[in-house]
């Protein structure tokens, strides 16, 4: 008889249970080899069998050793439910199943004196998404014709850069009746209204980062879509910094300043300006936390790019030396504007928060006119690594806050002066065009998205806690790991192709939404064309309630 050891970890304490069928298993070993978390292992079970080998029953007992696959009940190796074992099994002999009776959160903390960490996304959000209660309900008909999505021309670009109010434009009226620009205006680029969000090389595997870069270059050079990607905090390969493709990249600086040593050293050799600089103050998925790259992912090439030893890389929660918005404006924005000789727009990224409007107001009223974009990131955004408690219990949805910022701008007659870019769950249900379009109508000039790119690459994670192991460096899809064996699972050409195709689809779908409302340019601030089936949402966002 076994003793019940109630305080030992058991597999039914864990969030996922491995379901295994001995009869179907051929013991090929594929699942064990494929499981990057070491959550399953082969073992030998002692099996008791009663049988009879005579004409009349004379039961005999035999014991034999049967090799099986079994779940590991070690905290470090708990099953993430990624499903790779099921994918690789030729006989459907194994799969993982969500354990509704999991005691994981309690057991983990009681054992390690620390809360669990994960990568991925907020997993508590179970109610309907705000954006899904909205529809494009103002359809042009009769006297105001809908446009033809296939044949009409559409202008689908968004500004990145500070916009001056018309009365401050440095125009001189010549004797020929023409206005001539006779002074400096802040740098501004018109780009595609969807930016591929800031995921660092380090958080992503080099193949994944390369795939995103290839997709962006292809979209620009071959498809005519000026899509930009943001580097994330972690620098860039020097070869790319010195290449012409730098113009498609927005360089990010966050509180750890990772990678900037190399960026600064590469500046004299740059043949193109970057598309922008994004100063990351906060992140929607884990507001109040700085970036986190676990030591497991700090491989030698990451150490080189960032100039760091192999250790957990924690960016401070705030930028050291910045004690006020005014200071941040003066110091950081001016220095980054100056660094690229006022040719490159400098924007800020903050986590959506109850106080976002105050921050936005401070920036939009800055007398220097140098804040080139307000990137607002909501709770549904993803992250490479965070404490569970931050992911699940801190943050603010982006939709109402973006709307608040736009309305704050309207109240001051300053809409558009600092372009608004929104993120945090854009394309969460797979339709990025619809989400983006609704955000435009609510006042966003553009949106940015990161997690969706991982889904396009084959990420196995979801909002129901599946996988979410980006922090471990053991990503089974080769997307968020630096382990060469795992990274090789990812085919960067296929990933780039998926991203390109997806964007081409999004571009068509945007037109399919612009055409019925009769607009040939982006309907930024056209809340009148949205309706909501949820009264509370309609009231909060000031759109028409319908039933």
């Amino acid at each position, binding site marked *: 008889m076994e003793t019940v050891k109630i305080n030992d970890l058991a597999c039914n304490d864990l969030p996922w249970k491995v379901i295994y069928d001995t009869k179907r298993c051929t013991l090929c070993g594929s699942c064990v080899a494929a499981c990057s978390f070491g959550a399953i292992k082969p073992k030998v079970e002692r099996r008791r069998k009663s049988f009879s080998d005579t004409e009349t029953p004379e039961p005999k007992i035999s014991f034999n050793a049967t090799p099986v696959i079994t779940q590991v009940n070690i905290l470090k190796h708990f099953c993430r439910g990624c499903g790779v074992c099921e994918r690789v099994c030729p006989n459907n002999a194994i799969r993982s199943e969500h354990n509704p009776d999991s005691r994981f959160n309690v057991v983990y903390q009681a054992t390690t004196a620390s809360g669990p960490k994960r990568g991925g996304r907020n997993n508590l959000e179970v109610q309907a998404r705000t954006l899904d209660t909205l529809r494009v309900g103002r359809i042009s008909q009769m006297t*105001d014709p809908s446009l033809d999505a296939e044949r009409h021309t559409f202008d689908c670009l968004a500004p990145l850069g500070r916009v001056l109010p018309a*009365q401050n434009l440095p125009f001189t009226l010549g004797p020929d009746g023409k206005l001539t620009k006779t002074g400096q205006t802040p740098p501004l680029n018109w780009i595609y209204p969807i930016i591929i969000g800031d995921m660092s090389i380090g958080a992503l595997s080099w193949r994944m980062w390369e795939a995103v870069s290839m997709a962006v270059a292809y979209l620009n050079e071959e498809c005519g879509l000026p899509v930009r990607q943001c580097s994330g905090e972690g620098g860039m390969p020097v070869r790319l910094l010195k290449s012409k493709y730098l113009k498609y990249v927005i360089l990010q600086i966050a509180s750890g300043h990772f990678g900037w040593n190399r960026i600064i050293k590469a500046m004299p050799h740059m043949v193109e300006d970057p598309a922008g600089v994004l100063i990351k103050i906060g992140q929607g998925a884990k507001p109040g936390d700085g970036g986190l790259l676990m030591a497991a992912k700090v491989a030698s090439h990451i150490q080189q790019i960032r100039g760091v030893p192999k250790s957990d890389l924690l960016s401070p929660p705030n930028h050291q030396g910045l004690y006020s918005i005014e200071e941040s404006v003066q110091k950081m924005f001016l220095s980054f504007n100056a660094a690229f000789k006022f040719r490159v727009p400098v924007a800020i990224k903050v986590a959506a928060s109850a106080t976002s409007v105050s921050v936005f107001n401070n920036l939009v009223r800055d007398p220097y006119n140098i804040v080139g974009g307000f990137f607002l990131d909501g709770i549904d955004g993803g992250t490479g690594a965070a404490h569970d408690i931050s992911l699940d219990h801190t943050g603010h949805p982006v939709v109402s806050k973006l709307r608040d910022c736009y309305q704050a701008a309207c109240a001051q007659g300053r809409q558009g002066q600092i372009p608004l870019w929104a993120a945090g769950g854009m394309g969460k249900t797979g339709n990025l065009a619809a989400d983006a379009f609704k955000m435009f109508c609510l006042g966003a000039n553009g949106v940015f998205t990161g997690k969706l790119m991982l889904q396009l690459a084959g990420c196995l994670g979801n909002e129901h806690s599946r996988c979410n192991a980006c922090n471990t460096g053991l990503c089974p899809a080769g997307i968020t790991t630096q382990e060469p064996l795992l990274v090789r699972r990812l085919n960067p050409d296929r990933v780039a192709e998926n991203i390109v195709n997806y964007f081409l689809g999004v571009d068509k779908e945007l037109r399919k939404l612009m055409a019925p409302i*009769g607009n040939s340019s982006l309907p930024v601030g*056209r809340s*009148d064309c949205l309706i909501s089936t949820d009264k509370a949402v309609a009231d909060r966002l000031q759109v028409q309630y319908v039933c």
Partner: protein
Amino acid sequence: MCRIGAIKSLNYVHPSKALHLMNSQQKGHDNSGFAMVMQDLGGIFADHKEKPTISLACSDEGLAIAEEILDGSGFRCVFEWIPETNRLPGLDIKAMPNYVFRTFDYPKEMENATKREKEELLTETRLRIRFAMERGETGFVYSFWPDVITLKEIGNPRDIGAFFGLWEADESFTARTITAQCRQNTNYTIVRYAAHPFFLQGYVTLTNGENTFYQKNKDFQSTLHPGYIGFESDSQCFLYTMHYMHRQLGWPLQYYKHIITPLPFEEVVKREDKEELLAIRQSLAHLEINGPNTIIGALPDFTMWVVCDAKKLRPIVVGRTKDTVVFSSEVCGINEILPERDWEADIYPNEREIVVVDNNLEVQRWKQ
């Protein structure tokens, strides 16, 4: 559906011309009202061109409110014209008790004021009267400006003409520039203010079309100028954009088109003035319009112009003789009042041009 029309002439023209211009297009509008703005006045107003005239439609109580505000501000009445109205039974008109057109001298303390200061006083006074009359729904004030008269009424244009005796041409009530339209704002609540043409500080516009960027235009304009109010019609946005660009920013007329219907990016980047055009597009992105439109307008110096939306989804024709130019949604309107003109010289403006007529009736076509 709207039909719009405008007449600009070297000679003083009676508003019956405008009624004839619009009457022939009645299948295209719904006969729900009549509104017109007369500028560069002749006849009985010819001696008062420098002095502001107020155009009121109101109850007795409303008139008392207006008088109190005008007196209180020091305006001194120098001339009054009260149209003889024919209150015949059976006329389709929702008439107001009083129609008052009074011309004033500026207050004494404004004697040495600049033109701009006087103009701001006129607008401020008009807005005060408007707000005061709105509180008790006692009337409407359409314009208070030198050399301008505005009339708006609800009903059948034919009957409105009969009511005001406008079908009989005479030389006492004339103007060189007349803009007119025969429809109330049937899309939304019927409000007299919502009828085109719209007027602000010498600027006039009237539109055949819809502005699908109304919400964002309105959100942006609401904070730009105290006169940008009402927004009873989405077409008021076109007036406010013109006023903002031309008067507030001091930009020439040709830039209007670049604001409301900017060139596609791929065309802008090929132009010499791309820096200016991109800066304009960036700064005034919220004044861009969308939807089908033809906009006729007049400037304070009476220059008349017309533009279309970027896809030319609404019609407009410009016909002319030596002494008259007529803008009309349908050519039948011009045929009615300028039958002898050279039809081959008619202009059908395209989606990328502004047609401009100055006070010498020189017609120019500017390509955007």
